[in-house]
């Protein structure tokens, strides 16, 4: 039983942000109203026909009634079909929109969420919305429309029965709230303990390889048996309480139908009501409670769906799409008192420097001193908490990320490589680059031996850490040959031998671009025009 957030049955953000939801709710209400009207008409037809047989001596007119009934039932079947179909279309539309928005947010502000959680969210997570749309929302709509219309129909036919229903229907949420209220603390406490026990199995299985290495795996089976027994006892204890609300729901709904039947029956005996009306009321009474009961059945689907939407919005909200239109000039890059902190933790102490065109500046400082943070702020991946980065007075916030980064060719500490070939990865900088040029930049990056069609697997499988870095550098050099003019290199020569390192340093110089290089290596620091200390003087 997932813990419920304070939000209502429909997440307002799903309504405002996923347009398909609004359409679906609108169409759903229409279909729900039509269903309610058909239910009423069907009950009226049945009541009339059945009551007519008390005096009937022939099957006069029955055929007409049966045809009408068939039409009504086909209409209900059509509405069922339509609701299922609409639900799917809406779920699919919302899922697609959220998938797109999540990915766009990830690409706008990369590096926030671990890839594994993102994959789960994008696949199973969002699939939680299927249940929400196909089961929960349609039922919710029916639970509002059907009791309202059917209740009104009963009221017109027989206000006494309507009164019984009008009293009992509000009792359902009232009693359920009371039960939820009085048992909440107990359920929550048990649930926590039970969750811990339930995770024991997952923990043991995940730890099996480790246990085996220490010769302890088989011996743990006995412990597992004990935890499983305890887990079952606890779970049953929780269920005994949490099924209570379902019990009340069913008791109230069936008991109300029984009371309606009994009172109507009694009044019938004493000529207080006619047979046809009594039948009409009896047929309709369960219809009032059915959709309300079904909403309870699909409660879990709503929780899953809302949790999925919530996780999606957390992802999407990380993105602050920049819409500025300022152009970025070709002047020096001015870093002024740039600083960043996460809460109280200072990730980057205030740092200032100016990078003139053609200049090579090395950033030096202790590990964790904020060098990579500075690069992230420089590239606009991170909004610093203080200070600024500007080019001719324009900062990353004044323009789109794409425009701002046009001048930069960036090599992160661990360059990310797409699955494909070495050439595919270098060509990220320019898909039109010819083989010869790709070979040239690879050689300039100190990797002349790498074949262009050398396969790169998932997570750069098939390349060593050094090769991976050099492919990243080659890619940056290719971008510099196009329209970029600032190399941003994070530890470009870590793990490279002295010869390769010399080639890289030489190529950076030869490219004529300005460069910001994070490095500890003396050879790199020596080749720089200036060394800027970031975070202490170690």
């Amino acid at each position, binding site marked *: 039983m997932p813990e419920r957030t304070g939000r209502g049955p429909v997440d307002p953000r799903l309504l405002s942000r996923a347009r398909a939801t609004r359409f679906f709710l609108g169409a759903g209400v229409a279909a729900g109203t039509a269903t309610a009207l058909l239910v009423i008409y069907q009950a009226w037809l*049945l009541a009339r026909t*059945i009551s007519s*047989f*008390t005096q*009937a001596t022939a099957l006069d007119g*029955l055929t007409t009634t*049966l045809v009408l*009934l068939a039409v009504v*039932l086909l209409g209900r079947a*059509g509405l069922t079909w339509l609701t299922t179909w609409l639900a*799917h279309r809406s779920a*699919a539309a919302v899922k697609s929109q959220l*998938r797109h928005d999540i990915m766009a947010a990830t690409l*706008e502000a990369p590096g926030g*969420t671990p*890839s*594994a959680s*993102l*994959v789960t969210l994008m*696949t199973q997570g969002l699939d939680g919305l299927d249940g929400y749309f196909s089961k929960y929302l349609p039922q919710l709509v029916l639970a509002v429309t059907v009791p309202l219309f059917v209740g009104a129909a009963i009221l017109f036919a027989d206000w006494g029965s309507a009164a019984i229903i009008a009293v009992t229907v509000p009792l359902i949420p009232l009693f359920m709230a009371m039960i939820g209220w009085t048992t909440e603390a107990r359920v929550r406490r048990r649930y926590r303990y039970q969750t*811990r026990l339930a*995770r024991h*199995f997952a923990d043991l*299985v*995940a*730890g*099996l*390889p*480790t246990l*085996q290495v220490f010769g*302890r795996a*088989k011996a743990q*089976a006995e412990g*597992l*048996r004990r935890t*499983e027994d305890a887990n*079952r006892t606890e779970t049953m204890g929780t269920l005994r309480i949490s*099924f209570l609300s379902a019990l009340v729901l069913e*008791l109230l709904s*069936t*008991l109300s139908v*029984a*009371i309606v039947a009994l009172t*109507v*029956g009694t009044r019938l005996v004493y000529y207080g009501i006619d*047979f046809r009306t009594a*039948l009409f009321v*009896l047929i309709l009474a*369960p219809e009032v409670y059915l959709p309300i009961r079904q909403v309870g059945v699909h409660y879990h689907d709503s929780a899953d769906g809302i949790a999925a939407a919530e996780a999606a919005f957390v992802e999407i909200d990380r993105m602050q799409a920049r819409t500025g239109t300022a152009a970025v000039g070709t002047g020096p890059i001015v870093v002024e008192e740039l600083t960043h902190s996460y809460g109280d933790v200072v990730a980057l102490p205030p740092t200032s420097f100016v990078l003139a065109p053609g200049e090579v500046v090395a950033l030096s400082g202790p590990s964790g001193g904020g060098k990579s943070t500075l690069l992230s702020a420089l590239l606009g*991946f991170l909004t610093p908490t203080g200070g600024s980065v500007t080019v001719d007075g324009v900062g990353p916030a004044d323009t789109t*990320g794409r425009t701002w980064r046009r001048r930069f*060719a*960036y090599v992160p500490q661990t*360059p990310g490589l797409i*699955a494909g070939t070495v050439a595919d990865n270098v060509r*990220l900088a320019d898909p039109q680059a010819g083989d010869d040029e790709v070979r040239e930049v690879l050689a300039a990056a100190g990797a002349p031996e790498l074949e262009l069609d050398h396969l790169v697997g*998932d997570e750069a499988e098939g390349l060593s850490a050094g090769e991976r870095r050099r492919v990243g550098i080659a*890619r940056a050099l290719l971008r510099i040959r196009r329209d970029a003019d600032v190399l941003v290199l994070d530890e470009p020569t*870590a*793990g490279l031998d002295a010869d390769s390192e010399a080639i890289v340093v030489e190529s950076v110089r030869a490219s004529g671009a300005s460069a910001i290089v994070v490095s500890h290596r003396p050879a790199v620091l020596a080749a720089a025009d200036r060394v800027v200390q970031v975070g202490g003087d170690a």
Partner: protein
Amino acid sequence: MRSGWQRLVADLLRSVPRGRWLLAASIVLAALASGASIALIGVSAWLISKAAEHPNFLDLSVAAVGVRFFGISRGVFRYTERLVGHELALRMQSALRLRTYTTLARTTLMGKRHGDMLVRVVADVEAVQDVVVRVVLPFASAVVVMVGTSAMLVRFSLGNAAVLLATAVVAGLVLPAWAQRVSRDADAAAIPLRGRLADQVRQTALVAVDLVAYDADTAALARIDDLDAQLRAAERRATAVRAWAAAGQVVAAGTAVIAALWIGGAAVVSGAIAPRLLAVLVLTPLALHEVLGGLAQAAQTLTRAQTALDRVVEVLDAEPVGRGDAPLADASEHPAVHVADLTIGWPGFAPVGSGISFDLAAGESVAVVGPSGVGKTTLAATVLGLIPPVSGEVTTSGRVGYLAQDAHLFATTIAENVRIGNKDATDDEVVAALDQAGLPLDPDRIVGELGATLSGGEARRLALSRLFAGSYDVLVLDEPSEHLDAPTANALLDDLWSSVGTRPLLVVTHDERVVARCDKVVRLTA
């Protein structure tokens, strides 16, 4: 011929104490609960029809008691059924978990290839609960109710009873089964698409920075949108089937009602049955079909559950590989490893390395290097005795301990985690082992999923302390510096080398810094 998951469920049912009794009890209770709601309508219809004849009020008293009884009992039956059914389902789940655990414990699981399977199987075994509570019970009880209700109607009208049974079978069994079969095929077609979407998302997220920095993000986003569109089309096919099945159920219910009016009306006119029974004949099918409405859902649950359980069956039926638990050797005064002309390979797979020879004595360290996939972890597993060598010779003297790069931290205290290395370690020994591993943490602190997480370096040190707690004589280290940043890795390696003393050290690595610290290098080639 039963399929894998059916055999598994039947098997578990037998292995659970009083399993069949619990199953029978919950089917009966579920049938009683559904039966009560049908009977409520049926008896109410009779009561009203009879009341319309303005009889003596006493003539209605039996029916009135029935109406009250069915009105109350439905909820009570349902509540009891839920509890009994869940008790059974949980017992079967526990039995399956134990069976899965003991089976997995018998097969050697070291190495990366098992990670996904272990995660998946944990979720998969939970499907047995769904099968019992959401599939078996609804269908079994529905069959009882269908037959029972039809049998009751036989007393009044054979024709009505026959039509009701036929429409109930269509709505409750045929349509759900059809929808399940067809949409399962459509769902199956969507599985590879889901896999591709997941791959694409993961890759894009991993290289997002680079894609953005090189303006390749629009293309990446377009690829994901494209996969999403394909997935949508595949899901649409499955939904169409479900929509038709749901509509079909309404049509079946309508057929039952119309037939009841037609046949019942004729019977009333001909005087075969009393007019007051017509309402019973017409309203009972409505109530029965309402009960059957949920079965399409049950059939869909089955699709998901059976795929999961089939995967569990696969795990349970797999031949054990290696010996599971590492053998516990005696301590030795002269710990050593002797490897001569060794060919290694995972049982059931092609050998990955051959002609491996080296000797490792006290005070020595040997680095095993080579490209990934060349069998470094397989060599470690062979030296540990977890899997047999394909050919050649491995002899070890002394207890061999292994430090994995991804050693699991259990969700419990630091002390209990250390005791994985030696379950009898005293509190003092635990503290000593932690000190030796350079991890001065509170032994009572909770770690893992439930507690604070440790940094990569701390986790590696905690795993190392297990080896010190267990007084292992020979240490096998698997990529000890992997995934650690340079300062952390260096600090760890410094401490490691100073704390192992004269224990022979076999290090599997591709990190040059680690290789540089070793006395000998064994190079594996593909």
